[in-house]
């Protein structure tokens, strides 16, 4: 019987496999950042261990860095300590660091692909759940905790129980691909399979609805695999993948011969079996807006906030969850999504802060002004994205419309730096999680695509971007 892409990558990375033991898997790339690494380095020091492969380990700082003027000192003392600790750890252990002043600094999941560190067929780990992003290149990319970070630093391997392959087919063609985006596809998938729908699996996204997407859009899809509970999400590499990685700073010297091998091997065989399947038809899907406090609590922009009964379909806990969510979000069932007023807009995060995302959002913004009720910001995913956007004049478009144009980092996606919502703020956000307090204590998050966030910024409420002339 044939193998799935996931199984091929898994098999080619087994260091040790014994019955009734987890498999020891080799890790090709380890990305680290300032928040989940300090205790791992402490552990190495305590046990007198070195980093086994500093050449395969890359660090940046993204989670708590300020997005304001980089020449000013960091006011938050604890953030400053965490940043200095990473600098010291990288120096002591010989690890390449893209620090605050590096042109390569940025959100770890944006810079990996941009620098050619992310490669098809590779195993990639990072102490961050959105590591699944790198699966867009046909890599097996896993988010891990700090104990595992330490284990990988010390051994370049990780013990794993083999997850099950899950096929998600995306069929059809979007009628208006500028208005209905990759974000809307992945939110639709999570809405359907639920936040635990992918538990214990590695998802492979397949079908023309996926191959039609750009690499940046594919990253948006794989990024949110974790929001469906999956260990990882991946997409078989094709010519778009190979073109994207060609000639980047860390692209291997023997790249073309690697591409030849990848073309032959990195795909799911026609007779391979998946343990779980789901199909989404995208011909008629609408822009999505989350109304609740997990990414599965999402509906079409043309719909109304559902009642807990409609949402839960008889499940008691789901119903309680929806009641609690409506209370936290201060929303009433039956309210039209387009009537929901917002006062904050965040365009950023590892989900939606790449050049493509900013270009698409700028088309909505151009010639318009942010509503007087709204405070809006753009946080490019990396300093390189920021520079490329500025070369295209996007910064001017955003600034002229009264958006704030910031330095790169995770920023308001998780509220670790000063970019947070105040209690009661309601935000249209291009990020990945609408959990209670995620963007700041008492803040309310609606997950949307970059074009939906841009349109909400101008109008002060959600609008159906299919009505706009986008191309």
């Amino acid at each position, binding site marked *: 019987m044939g193998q799935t892409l996931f199984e091929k990558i898994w098999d080619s990375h087994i260091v040790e496999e*014994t019955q009734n033991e987890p498999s020891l898997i080799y890790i090709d790339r380890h990305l680290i950042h300032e928040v989940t690494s300090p*205790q791992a380095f402490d552990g190495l020091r305590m046990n007198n261990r070195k980093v086994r492969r500093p050449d395969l380990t890359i660090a940046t700082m993204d989670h*708590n860095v300020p997005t304001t003027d980089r020449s000013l000192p960091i006011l938050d003392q*604890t953030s400053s300590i965490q940043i200095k600790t990473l600098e010291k750890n990288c120096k002591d252990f010989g690890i390449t660091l893209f620090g605050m002043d590096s042109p390569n600094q940025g959100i770890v999941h944006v810079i990996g692909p941009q620098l050619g560190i992310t490669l098809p067929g590779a195993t990639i780990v990072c102490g961050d759940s959105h590591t699944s992003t790198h699966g867009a290149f046909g890599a097996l990319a896993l988010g891990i905790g*700090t104990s595992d970070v330490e284990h990988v630093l010390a051994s370049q391997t990780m013990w794993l129980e083999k997850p099950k392959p899950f096929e998600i087919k995306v069929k059809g063609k979007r009628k208006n691909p500028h208005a209905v985006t990759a974000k809307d596809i992945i939110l639709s998938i999570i809405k359907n399979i639920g936040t635990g729908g992918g538990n214990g699996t590695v998802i492979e996204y397949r079908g023309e609805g996926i191959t039609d997407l750009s690499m940046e859009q594919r990253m948006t899809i794989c990024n949110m695999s974790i929001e469906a509970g999956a260990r990882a999400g991946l997409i078989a590499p094709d010519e778009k993948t190979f073109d994207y990685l060609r000639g980047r700073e860390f692209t291997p010297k023997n790249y073309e011969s690697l591409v030849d091998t990848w073309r032959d091997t990195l795909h799911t065989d026609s007779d391979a079996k998946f343990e779980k399947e789901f199909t989404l038809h995208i011909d008629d899907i609408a822009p999505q807006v989350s109304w609740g406090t997990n990414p599965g609590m999402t509906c079409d922009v043309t719909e109304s906030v559902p009642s807990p009964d409609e949402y839960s379909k008889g499940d008691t806990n789901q119903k309680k969850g929806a009641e609690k969510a409506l209370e936290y979000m201060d929303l009433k069932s039956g309210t039209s999504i387009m009537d929901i007023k917002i006062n904050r807009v965040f365009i950023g995060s590892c989900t939606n802060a790449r050049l493509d995302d900013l270009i698409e959002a700028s088309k909505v913004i151009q010639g318009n002004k942010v509503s007087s009720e709204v405070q809006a910001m753009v946080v490019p995913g990396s300093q390189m994205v920021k520079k490329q956007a500025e070369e295209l004049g996007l910064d001017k478009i955003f600034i002229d419309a009264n958006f704030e144009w910031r330095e790169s980092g995770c920023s308001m996606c*998780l*509220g670790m730096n000063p970019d947070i919502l105040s209690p009661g703020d309601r935000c249209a956000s291009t990020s990945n999680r609408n959990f209670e307090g995620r963007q700041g*204590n008492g803040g309310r998050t609606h997950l949307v695509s970059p074009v939906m966030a841009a349109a909400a910024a101008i109008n002060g409420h959600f609008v159906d971007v299919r009505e706009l002339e986008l191309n």
Partner: protein
Amino acid sequence: MKGNIIKYARDNIDTDVIIPGQYLKIHDYAELATHAMEGLDPDFHSKVKEGDFILSGKNFGCGSSREHAPIALSHCGIKAVLALSFARIFYRNAVDGAFLLPIEIDQDAYDGIAEGDEIEIDVSANEIKNNTKNQTYKMKPFSEIIGKIIAAGGLFKYKPDLD
């Protein structure tokens, strides 16, 4: 293991409510623990006692990979989380660092056990005894591998038995 239950009767308790992002800069675990569950239940820290257990619904610990989540709970004295199901990274982190036991339960146990009930967990017999209600429930056994890592006291103490 014997302790009292703190029950959150809902699904999808995420790591952002277990320990909000703003506290991930704290390196002192005792201080981190003072903010555990702050995003969901501001009274948690005043009511939790050494040896308590949390009981919750499906997909407990979904979201971020922050190991700070099981660490914060364990440093409040929580010895186990009983849930209908767990998000994968939280489960792994809990076992890796031997912070607390992630115990999968069935609907009977979930419905039968209430806030404040005193329960006893017998991992070797895969049993949960509710002393308050005088009921007994089955827990889902740990996989052989997870059982070995737990018995060893975490990932760094575990030596696999290789051929």
